[in-house]
């Protein structure tokens, strides 16, 4: 148990709360979820292109106008299509995308159960 105490002491000495999260959180949260259309696989947040900079300004303007995160996504989706959103919503285009992995997980579990655990008797 001794080393445990050391770990605890270490963690408390290093006061985690001094490090604080971002100041303008929702803005960077949103821009991280947007794809920069003229770049190769970069988010708006990470890009410094003209297009990305404009979108960043637009997002802050829309936030000031009182739009919610989702409303901004809808706005941009209408202008540029779903390609701009990094988070594919759950709709008829993406049923398979979201459900297939989960289905595979269930199938995998079923196989394991059937072949190895139940078969014994």
């Amino acid at each position: 148990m001794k080393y445990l105490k050391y770990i605890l002491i270490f963690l408390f000495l290093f006061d985690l709360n001094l490090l604080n999260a971002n100041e303008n959180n929702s803005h960077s949260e949103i821009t991280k979820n947007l794809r920069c259309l003229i770049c190769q696989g970069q988010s708006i947040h990470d890009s410094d292109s003209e297009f990305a900079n404009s979108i960043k300004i637009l997002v802050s303007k829309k936030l000031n106008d009182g739009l919610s995160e989702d409303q901004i996504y809808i706005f941009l989706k209408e202008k540029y299509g779903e390609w701009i959103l990094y988070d594919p919503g759950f709709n008829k285009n993406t049923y398979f995308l979201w459900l297939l992995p989960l289905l595979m997980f269930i199938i995998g579990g079923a196989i394991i159960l059937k072949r190895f655990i139940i078969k014994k008797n």
Partner: protein
Amino acid sequence: MASLIGFYSLVFGLCLSFIVVLFSIKNFRNSLVFDKKILSLTFLQLFFVITSFLGLIISFINSDFSNETVFNHSHTTKPLFYKISGTWGNHEGSLLLWLLVLNLFIFLFLLKSKEQDKNYRILTLLFQQVIIIGFFIFIIKTSNPFNYIFPVPTEGLGLNPILQDPALAIHPPILYLGYVGSSVIFSATLAATCLNYISKNWAKHIKTWVLWSWIFLTLGILLGSIWAYYELGWGGFWFWDPVENVSLMPWIALTTLLHCILILEKRKILTSWVIILSISTFTLSMCGTFLVRSGILNSVHTFANDPERGLYILIFLFCLIFLSLFIFFFYHKTEDNQKYDFFWLSKESSILVNNWFMMYFLVVILIGTIYPIFLEVINSEKISVGPPFYIKLIIPFLIPFLFAMAIGPKLKWIKSDIQNKINLSIFFIISFFLSILIIKNLKVNFLVNTILVTSALYLFLVTSKEFLIKGINNLAQNLAHFGFSLLILSILFNNFFSTEIITNLKIGETFKSEKIHITFESIEKKEIKNYSSIIGKININDPKGLNQTLEPELRIYNQPNIVTSEADIKTNLFSDKFITMNLVQNQDYFNIRYQIKPFMIWIWLSVLLICSGGLISLFRKKI
């Protein structure tokens, strides 16, 4: 001249492939002992491929612009080191490296498998030669690195500056050793399946190759990540970009295989599963090559892409898939007498659970990466699948996975019992309260993150205890698992506590907030051989008395004319201070991006720990 030698070596290498195949078939049928000639011929082939590769390197060193590859990717003013690394920094050269590694591995395999059955060795060689021939033809037909151009240009086009970097110079060879190294596992498994050779002994023998591939792949991914972190200039190290995903998928498959082989080695059960995993590892590597080289996906890490190349790899990939499906279904004898006589709480089932979750993670990444292609083909709609998708599907499953990982290794074979229940519950309570303490002040989802951090901390505590008490007994495993728990924890904390300030500053201006003052003091211009640089001096001042000057840099490369932004990073044990500056068009200010990224170094260190776990496992076996 060097190009010419290189090209002819390549052709000779291909001819040798056919000779090796002929000799092998003869030897396979008619003799009981392994023909020494085959080994010499394989060595000769390796020699030719090395010569060819050296020929390309020499063309690069001499800046021989009559060679198209050199012309496209080099320049006389480039430093020697980057001239050499430029050899594999492009499509053609990197494929030559592929081929080199394919040959190298089969040669080493033949050398190191003397105690194995003759037919098994020859069949492995034959399967590997199929892959090698495929790549020879691919290189010579679609991506010949030795194309001649006339009239000879006087100057080359230069190497993309973001590739002129030490980490990225050694990244491809190391990654390929892992990536392509899995080809030997593939060939050996197919051979063993055909001959019904799979046994405990075989598992022990193939484990070495799995471990080597795995170590190199892990290191390769680490290097790529480090490079992305400091070179791409936005402070992330993993973007769920397609190219990163395709390197992670074989890694997951290999890791799963590694665990699964443990069962095979001890109990000789799950043979079919081991075969499937070995085949899918290399198939995933090939699939990755296809996705990256064909340009079918939109990615940060672009290669010059060409649909014709994509088509060739695609056809080749599916030939290999059909071949392995055929062998698996018609040669593999499913042994119904395999006894699954283990209890639900045992080492076997814990490894099965590990496999189950790992496969799930693999499927998430695979589907996330290729789904957009399918959607576009089927109803021509374009969507992006980015980080939010992976996070949403992986995190909820990571939690039980981490708990299982804490308990699993403690279990015994066949039937087990959880010992030290009190100890384990104490650990759980401690990690639970610690995580509440950590999460409660953060603006993140409380419930999910508390459970997540609890599971990570729990794994961390359990593995560190294991590591400290029984370290020597099972060092390899303990080290790797401890490294993994440290990795997860560092990534989580890094995510929670990262701070970022983005601001536009002119020279002399100061950004002021309660916590920090950022002063843009001055800039300095310098001329270096192949670029000119602007170095900013930026002073960071915070009330805690920290006073630091960081010097981010802008490099304006002359060939090709590209501006890159070099981050300045100050690393210490707890956090990285990361700063970049960028030009803004038509403005006289710079865009400054300052980030505090806690525990960065622990992410790198923990991956190294995981690797060293693998190395120790190799080393200990030999004693």
